[in-house]
């Protein structure tokens, strides 16, 4: 059925070379369908974060092309949100004002903004801390604020650059479940960069393993567990087998 639709995001012969001549990504060809949740995994230096920066047009393409719903990346920013590795909140703004930042930049009036912000804070379970400043929050709470901020502009595509890397495992697992719940509600397409195989398997509909030096697509693994996925999935044999499978692919790539 996926073949009927033209790809939602299309990367063609995408190459990124730094000024010092290092080729980070070499001739990447990838298609993403609408509604997919794709994890990018690979050894450090494979350019998985760079790939996100190229899709969001935060770094220029050396050669090749990216098309997002028929648009150039820079024009597609309106339908994309980026979630960074750190929560990257503005320390001088309250939680509320941080979540409302994107709407504020769009010029949406304060009243409408506040309504939206409050519903999002409720969605990520932070309705109590709207008036607090980021420094008063724990790491996990900050990341929730960051997620709420990204969702405030109702994106169709969410780009996540190792958002949970700095969190402890318990918080990470809970946020993983929450992320899936949020995705079910609003149905965005996700591209997720991670170091954690378990996390990638739990979240994704598809895992792309990248090799390093230069970054190339090594494996493209579908993950077909049904949604909604809950904690129980983590305990199942199929899940274990999938984690093992992906880990092996990753190790094979790292040997090269």
């Amino acid at each position, binding site marked *: 059925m996926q073949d009927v639709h033209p790809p939602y995001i299309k990367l063609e012969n995408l190459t990124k070379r730094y000024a010092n001549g290092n080729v980070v990504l070499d001739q990447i060809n990838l298609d993403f369908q609408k509604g997919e949740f794709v994890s990018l995994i690979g050894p450090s230096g494979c350019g998985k974060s760079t790939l996100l920066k190229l899709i969001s047009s935060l770094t220029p393409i050396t050669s090749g092309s990216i098309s997002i719903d028929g648009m150039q990346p820079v024009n597609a920013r309106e339908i994309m949100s980026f979630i960074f590795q750190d929560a990257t909140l503005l320390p001088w*703004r309250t939680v509320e004002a941080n979540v409302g930042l994107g709407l504020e930049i769009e010029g949406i009036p304060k009243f409408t903004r506040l309504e939206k912000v409050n519903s999002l804070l409720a969605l990520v379970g932070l309705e109590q801390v709207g008036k607090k*400043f980021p420094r008063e929050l724990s790491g996990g709470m900050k990341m929730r604020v960051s997620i709420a901020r990204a969702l405030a502009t109702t994106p169709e595509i969410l780009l996540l650059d190792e958002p949970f890397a700095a969190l402890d495992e318990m918080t990470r697992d809970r946020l993983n479940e929450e992320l899936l719940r949020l995705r079910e509600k609003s149905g965005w397409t996700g591209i997720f960069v991670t170091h954690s195989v378990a996390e990638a398997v739990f979240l994704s509909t598809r895992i792309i393993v990248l090799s390093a030096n230069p970054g190339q697509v090594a494996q493209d693994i579908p993950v077909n567990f049904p949604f909604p996925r809950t904690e129980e999935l983590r305990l199942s044999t199929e899940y274990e087998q999938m984690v093992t499978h992906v880990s092996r692919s990753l190790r094979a790539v790292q040997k090269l």
Partner: protein
Amino acid sequence: MNKTLYNILSGLGVFFTVILVWYLIIGIGGLPRYMLPAPLDIAKSAIEKSDNLLFALRITATTAILGFIFSLIFGVLVAIIFAEFPLVRRMLYPYTVILQSVPIVAIAPLIIMWVGAGPVSVTLVTFIVCVTPIIANTTQGLISVDKNLQDLFLMNNASRAQILWKLRVPNAIPSLMVGARISAGLSSIGAIVGELFTGSNRVGEGGLGYSITYANSQLQTDYLFALVACSTGLGLVLVFIIMFFEWLLLHNWHESARPVDAD
């Protein structure tokens, strides 16, 4: 709490020891009063001449504050231009550093010669002393913005003006306040140095700087000491005012303004 009490007591201890040593020097050394007046004489002369003292203080405080405010406005504007136009920054920034290294004592007479003696030239000297710390610190704060935060604004299609006002300027406030604190301390020094050279329209009446030279020439050393104490007090008060604003602006969110448990 005990720690606070201890800090206050040790501070007072140093103060009284200095006073004691002072009297010992006068007593043992047998110094004449015009060389080193006793603390009590200084206080007495300050009270006797409190009208003159307050008059001088008011003049100096006014020029110091005016010079400081001008330097704050001008310095922030220059910093914004430096931050928005890297080419201008690369061309002109080195000169602001050079300006900071020019000894103000050496150029104050020149400025007075060019502008004419009076409050305008004193304010100008104060301005020159105050402006470089504000330019340097504010520029630094405006340009050292976290890369991810910049990307965040780009992803939201923020305009250049939005990036300036919603990201760069708030990001620069802590370092702006550091610059302002340095400049506030310098502003009274700048005003006094300016006054040392401008003299006064009427003999014996002028700012603290003028009064210091006048008291010195009259060998009123006790009054001279009172003037110096008053100048120091002025500088401290200005710094404290800025520290209050710093607290007001930053205590909600910035690490520097959080109460520090001294240990």
